[in-house]
């Protein structure tokens, strides 16, 4: 006689139900664990903790804004002082310096271009949402657009007045988006000065921005492009690291 759980034919039915429920329970637990892992790091904070956290962030952001404006001001002063130097040899060097500044994003640029508006779906509030929420504009959307614009050989571009240069990272920490490691918040305005047709040619191909076009249709993420007669791209206001680079002479 089988001495395990099922003793007789008459007692099989309850065990089938128990085992089925057990199987569903295991599956549900697996799902629950995945969900819990996904939520890890999102903890309930008291009002005081939220205020303290925001104050700390604000302190760093205020310092960052001050330092960025100080950098712009110092670069302007430096350029002014350099212009005062009159000798011929130094004037030649100043011309070289001026051209180099233009090529690396240390000069303001104005001209025809396009303005792209990207914004989260009007029905959502960014704070507290998961990073992969389809109603949100993602850092990847900004990266893809910037890449397309660079491929169109723009003269200069910015996102919310942050000049984008070749070394500018566009990343995210949770739902916060950082450009040049500085916080930016929606709505996102991308300004690009350059050949409008070349830019539009790339931006209007849905395949190039498949995820964004799909979310525009499904989730009402805002994505609008407008040609502009005159746009101004500000100078790069971040740090430029070159201590590991050596010129081949």
């Amino acid at each position: 006689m089988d001495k395990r759980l099922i003793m007789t034919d008459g007692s099989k039915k309850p065990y089938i139900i128990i085992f089925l429920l057990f199987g569903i329970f295991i599956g549900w637990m697996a799902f629950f664990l995945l969900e819990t892992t996904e939520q890890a790091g999102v903890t309930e904070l008291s009002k005081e903790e939220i205020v303290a956290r925001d104050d700390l962030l604000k302190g760093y952001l205020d310092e960052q804004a001050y330092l960025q404006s100080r950098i712009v001001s110092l670069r302007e002063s430096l350029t002014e002082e350099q212009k005062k130097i009159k000798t011929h040899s130094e004037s030649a060097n100043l011309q070289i310096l001026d051209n180099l500044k233009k090529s690396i994003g240390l000069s303001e640029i104005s001209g025809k271009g396009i303005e792209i508006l990207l914004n989260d779906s009007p029905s959502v509030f960014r704070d507290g949402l998961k990073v992969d929420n389809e109603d949100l504009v993602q850092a990847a959307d900004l990266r893809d657009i910037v890449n397309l614009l660079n491929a169109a050989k723009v003269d200069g571009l910015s996102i919310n007045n942050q000049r984008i240069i070749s070394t500018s990272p566009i990343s995210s920490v949770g739902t916060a988006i950082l450009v040049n490691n500085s916080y930016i918040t929606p709505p996102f305005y991308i300004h690009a000065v350059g050949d409008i047709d070349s830019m539009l040619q790339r931006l209007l191909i849905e395949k190039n921005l498949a995820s964004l076009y799909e979310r525009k249709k499904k989730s009402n993420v805002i994505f609008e492009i407008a040609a502009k007669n005159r746009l101004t791209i500000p100078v790069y206001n971040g740090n430029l690291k070159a201590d590991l680079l050596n010129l081949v002479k």
Partner: protein
Amino acid sequence: MNLKVTYNQRIFLLTTIIALVLVFIFFPKARFKSIYRENDGNFFQEIKILKDKNEDLKKEVSGLEESLGQIADQDKALSAIQDEIEKYKKLSGDSQIFGPGFTLILNRDVALSWLVDLKNKFFEYGAQAVSINGIRLTNKTSGIDSLPKGQIIINGSIIAAPYEFNVICDPEPILDILDAPSEIFDKLSAAYPDLNLKTSKKEMIYMQ
């Protein structure tokens, strides 16, 4: 030997299958998460990024103040301008440069967005210069484009697998971060299980 499956064994088998089916119903969600292009964040990470950024900005301010001090002194003005020219030449991409760093080789084709994300991650974590298959990414060449048939093109040149990234940077801290779980190398490997992703530190990397 008795190979007959007992009733109990059949029931256990059935429950296991149900459990697995349920897990696999939700598996795409888990898999999607692992190859999602953005990272989950936390408050401490936010603070660290801001703190590091502010430190870098302070160094830049100090450097500029020093240059401004030099330019006011006629004797030092010329050398200050030369220093500035040299620094910007290194960044512009107009001159050949060299420095320490690492090489990353991807043995197969990947979607263009992964190349964009890799380049972005390198700069995010402190790279000072990056090239792909010998083409340095500068303000003039940083756009990675694709042709209708899917070929990848940078600055007018078609590039194809294997993709070789050269990155001038302090290699150890960057590779430590890039190799971490849920970071971009991990995500790339999840997206392309047959991808062979090989990194090697270099004492000297040259870029045109």
